[in-house]
């Protein structure tokens, strides 16, 4: 499991762990609790080029489908087939076995605009206060 403190977050609840120019992307523990009971994950195709904040993946629960937005621009270089076979991994291990895809960052400095855990938690608190989901 990755250390949530070492990750970067965006407001749409994806996290990214960037090292050597490749970002591993998943959804936060908060997001998996909100989505609940993931039953299907549609991953992006390896080789696809995505822009930061572009929807490229769908996580579906019993009740609804949720678009997942890439936190960074770049090329999808790997996807986690394990979550296709066992979608509940996203619920059980959001910061580990439930990762979704890896993106080779074309502009790694985009990560500077993302939130650290402290700011993300403040964002969650303000979302809760405004009752928006």
């Amino acid at each position, binding site marked *: 499991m990755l250390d949530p403190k070492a990750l970067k977050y965006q407001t749409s609840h994806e996290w990214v762990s960037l090292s050597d120019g490749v970002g591993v992307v998943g959804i936060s523990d908060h997001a998996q609790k909100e989505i*609940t*009971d993931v*039953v*299907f994950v549609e991953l992006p195709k390896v080789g696809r080029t995505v822009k930061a904040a572009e929807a490229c993946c769908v996580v579906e629960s*019993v*009740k609804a*489908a949720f678009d997942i937005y890439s936190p960074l621009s770049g090329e999808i270089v790997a996807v986690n087939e394990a979550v296709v076979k066992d979608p509940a991994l996203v619920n059980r291990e959001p910061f580990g076995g439930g990762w979704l895809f890896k993106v080779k960052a074309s502009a790694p400095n985009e990560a500077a605009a993302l939130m650290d855990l402290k700011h993300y938690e403040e964002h969650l608190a303000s979302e809760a206060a405004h009752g928006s989901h």
Partner: protein
Amino acid sequence: MSASTTIRRTPLHESHVQLHGKLVDFHGWELPVQYESIIKEHEAVRHRCGLFDVSHMGQVFVTGPQALDLLQKVNANDIARLKPGKAIYSHMPNEAGGIVDDVIVSCLAEGRYLVVVNAATREKDAAWMRRWAAGLDAVVDDRSDAYGMIAVQGPKAAEVVALLAPQAPALPRFGALELELFGQPSFLTRTGYTGEDGFEFIVPNETAVRVWSDLLTMGRSFGTVPCGLGARDVLRLEAGYLLYGQDADDEHSTYEANYGWVVKLDKGDFIGKPALAAQKKAGVRRLLTGVRLLSRGVPRLGAAVLVEGREAGQLCSATFSPSLQAGIGVGYLDRPGLPAGTPVSVVLHGREFPAETVKVPFYLSPNLKKGA
């Protein structure tokens, strides 16, 4: 739902908060969509026992020397077949054969009936019944505000309910009885909306919390868990039950909803009978049809269903079925009479997913004995 609508709470609201239920606005009622997990709650009902707060449902008492005449007039099913202590599922048709509501009518005694109606249609239903009660010696009394309603569903339900009501296991399927619970006159029917064995308590608001907490506490050893509307919707769709407002409404008839068995054309006159008789003779032009995805994916409300490449209708209810491990849904298709297994496709996220028509119910519980 408009923001100005006052949200209504059931007598069990505090219990849901304590149990960390995820509360949502359901037709103006604040109710838990889930507690821990829809999948886990669904699994509990299919294999053990689940408890549902269905206090938003309405209770309309119909009494008087001509109560039966009124109920016969407004129902498509044959209420005269009901003996005291029995309940029956029915549709109340309008003049065009559309469905005013789907209801469960219990005969408590001769000339004394309890009609359980849907939350969103309660006022409409009571007004409808009163309209047709004119000239009849029958009283329509909407007592919904006075009662809470708790469903206990699953193969262990009889054992759990027996802890509060020892006479429950002897109650037949669709049996109905009046009983005293904590000193209050209450009702118990062996009915439900899950496709499992189960019971529904109708109790005065004052005792609802005690009934709920006793069932939950004493039922723990049987694996009883509280369940939300999310699990309830998945369970009922798997079992092929209609959700009024989605799968059934004033515009679609009982025959179109594929519930023709409810209509008893031989019982005498009732509202909507001429329209329904004509439709039965001519055949329907659209039919509520079950569809199952053959690939991974979850169909959603409003998804188009293509037959031979042409849109034949849209899904009005759809979900992932944990029992079938597949996406399922129902929709009114303008191709009635498609045999089960007909290849179709469902449009999701702008793409066509292979699917096939299936006979509803999608899931038949092995726990329910045939004919039970």
